[in-house]
């Protein structure tokens, strides 16, 4: 328990190049291993989900943010705290739907795609799909089911990278019977 106090201070940073290139090596490997890009997208999303599930614990421990009151606050925390902490960039939160259940994260620069150009035969590949999985997995662990997808991508010639997030539902805690009632 006493170790918790110094955990926030040792949030080590590293040069982004190794991270970028390592991710590139991973995607390259997936493209070799799977027959089509859809499968690669799925696999990236799955890996991202696994990361997200573990990352949320790390995030809550390091950033002393509390429970979010609404989806707008969640969006702000993701953009201003989480992205900043892990990827060193701060996306802007825009394009809210009138109902307030859907927004876009717009990234001016995406550290995953430095040095990357998609070859012509990979036009279905969503290169940074890992991010979607991470967001989905992390939010699921705080009882939020969301739908995450790429709306725009600089790799496909768009000016910015836009991740669209849609709130689906609150996940009710499904505690085992004996915990719920005793």
């Amino acid at each position, binding site marked *: 328990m006493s170790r918790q106090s110094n955990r926030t201070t040792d949030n080590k*940073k590293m040069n982004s190049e190794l991270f970028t290139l*390592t991710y590139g090596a991973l995607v390259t490997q997936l493209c070799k291993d799977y027959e089509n890009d859809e499968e690669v997208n799925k696999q990236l999303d799955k890996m991202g989900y696994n990361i997200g599930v573990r*990352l949320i614990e790390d995030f809550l421990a390091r950033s002393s943010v509390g429970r979010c009151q609404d989806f707008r606050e969640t969006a702000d925390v993701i953009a201003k705290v989480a992205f900043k902490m892990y990827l060193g960039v701060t996306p802007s939160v825009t394009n809210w739907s009138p109902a307030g259940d859907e927004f876009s994260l717009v990234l001016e620069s995406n550290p995953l795609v430095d040095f990357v150009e998609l070859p012509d035969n990979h036009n279905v590949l969503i290169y940074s799909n890992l991010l979607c999985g991470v967001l989905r997995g992390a939010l699921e662990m705080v009882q939020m089911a969301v739908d995450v997808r790429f709306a725009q991508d600089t790799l496909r010639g768009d000016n910015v990278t836009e991740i669209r997030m849609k709130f689906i539902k609150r996940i009710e805690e499904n505690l085992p019977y004996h915990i719920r009632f005793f």
Partner: protein
Amino acid sequence: MHSHCSNLRIYFWIILLRKGFITAQLFSSRGFLNVTCDDMTLTPGRGSISTKTITLKMETRFTKGKSAILERPLTRPKTEVSVSAFALLFSEMVQYCQSRVYSVSELQARLAEMGQGVGVSLLDVLVLREKNGKRETKVLNILLFIKVSVWKSLFGKEADKLEQANDDDKTYYIIEKEPLVNLYISVPKDNSSLNCAAFTGGVVEAILTHSGFPAKVTVHWHKGTTLMIKFDEAVIARDKALEGR
């Protein structure tokens, strides 16, 4: 054109031989070219290629002028990511590799293969950035280049130690007490020989091989993690011939 285009370096990378097709992919510091030659015939046993008609279909994948990548300065970007983000990504990579292999050595080979991808991409930019486009010709210098420049750009510090084997002039060791990639990895007791720094080994092997110093790099648990570099005989012979120049 951009300044570093004068240092265009081309590697013959893969030569695939299929029914009457010969495809070569040329990698360079500016992208890569796919060259396809039709109607080429291989003359078996002579090691030469006789050609009737060669149609070179050059499918250039040189990045086009609009590409933002080429417009970027060569200096190292200041962007930083969190080590935990890297650790989680690396952990997923290891798990993914593990799900597709049967043994520890296969797992390490797979990690090394991914590391090679990193090494190849890194070499070009580092040679331009740190060496002003000049290549290394001496074994010791390329090893120092790895110990200092490569390590600094990857891990933010120099490698802990560089040693030569006492009894073998083609074996060198790079010793790292706590490699960044192993920082958050605890190896289960039943396969203790697994060292995920095989990934780093792959990076080093690719950099050496593509700089013209073909070598095999293996990873061992010794004084932390030791990368054992075994150069080809020819590399050491060449180095001896160059001595004093």
